[in-house]
């Protein structure tokens, strides 16, 4: 029996007589249930702006970063709550838990709120940049500061 490419890691029977392996069908069902039905996983997000040692922006504990990977497809729902900025204006970036297939690959949407009162917002379709994605707002690239938050909703193909 030739095994197909196992993108999602679902176990398959190895015996040529499938009736001999009911246990493997249980394993298949359990794997499918886990992959498709389980809760998302948490990853460690980073928010970067500027350069040097201070480029990593401190995030509040209300930050959450959730991801589900099904084979070559990644679903990501993340909220980055800025605790303190770096004081360096410039393009803001965040890490991807799984690399995109290519740079400039459209990944999904990002919503940036400057100040908790939705005083200055922006909504963009974001593209990959190596293993990072840009989250800077078009309405300016001034330094992020406490009260700002960035929301991501991405769905993309991964090379990982």
């Amino acid at each position, binding site marked *: 029996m030739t095994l197909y490419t196992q993108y999602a890691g679902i176990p398959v029977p190895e015996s040529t007589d499938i009736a001999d392996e009911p246990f493997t069908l249980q394993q298949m069902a359990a794997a499918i249930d*886990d992959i498709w039905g389980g809760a998302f996983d948490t990853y460690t997000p980073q928010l970067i702006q500027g350069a040097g040692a201070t480029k990593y922006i401190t995030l509040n504990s209300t930050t959450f970063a959730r991801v589900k990977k099904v084979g070559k497809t990644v679903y990501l729902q993340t909220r980055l709550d800025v605790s303190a900025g770096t004081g360096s204006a410039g393009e803001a970036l965040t890490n991807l838990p799984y690399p995109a297939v290519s740079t400039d690959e459209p990944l999904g949407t990002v919503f940036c709120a400057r100040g908790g009162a939705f005083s200055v917002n*922006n909504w963009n379709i974001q593209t990959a940049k190596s293993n990072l994605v840009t989250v800077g707002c078009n309405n300016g690239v001034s330094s992020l500061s406490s009260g700002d938050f960035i929301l991501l909703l991405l769905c993309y193909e991964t090379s990982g």
Partner: protein
Amino acid sequence: MATTNVLALRFPKDSDTSASKTFETAVADLANDIDAFAGAWTTITPTVNQGASTNIAKTVNIARHRTIGKWLEWEMQLSITGTGTASGLITVTGFPAPKNAGYSLIGQGGIRDTSVPTKFSSPILYDSGSTTAWIWAASDGNGKMGSSRFTAAFASGDLIYGSGWYEIA
């Protein structure tokens, strides 16, 4: 075998060799359960509010979701037939909610003001705070739909729509 079986898949049992359930039937049951993931979506009943106007009359053109375990996809298009309150925050309730605190981005869509006519594109957020509802946010630096951008009262002929996905509680 330990499993939570979130998707309620019909696992073939170790002893499924009796006449009541053959191995072939067990495989077919599992295949059918998996195939159901690609089935028709489920209807949902949304409620539209704007400021003091609650449960604004509307025609539900589209309102449905597909949920696979913790992952929910949704789409919605509502034609307003009633009247809202000018400068009131627009919220939609009646959907399953995510578990995270604060705001989460759950999709994109917009609002069409038929009186102008103008379409306002909008990211759609879930607010698990005091609002506990879905809100349509402005994408151009003007806060939230209803209370900021698009401050007219909802009127017959207006449209509110969107689609997206998120992890649910």
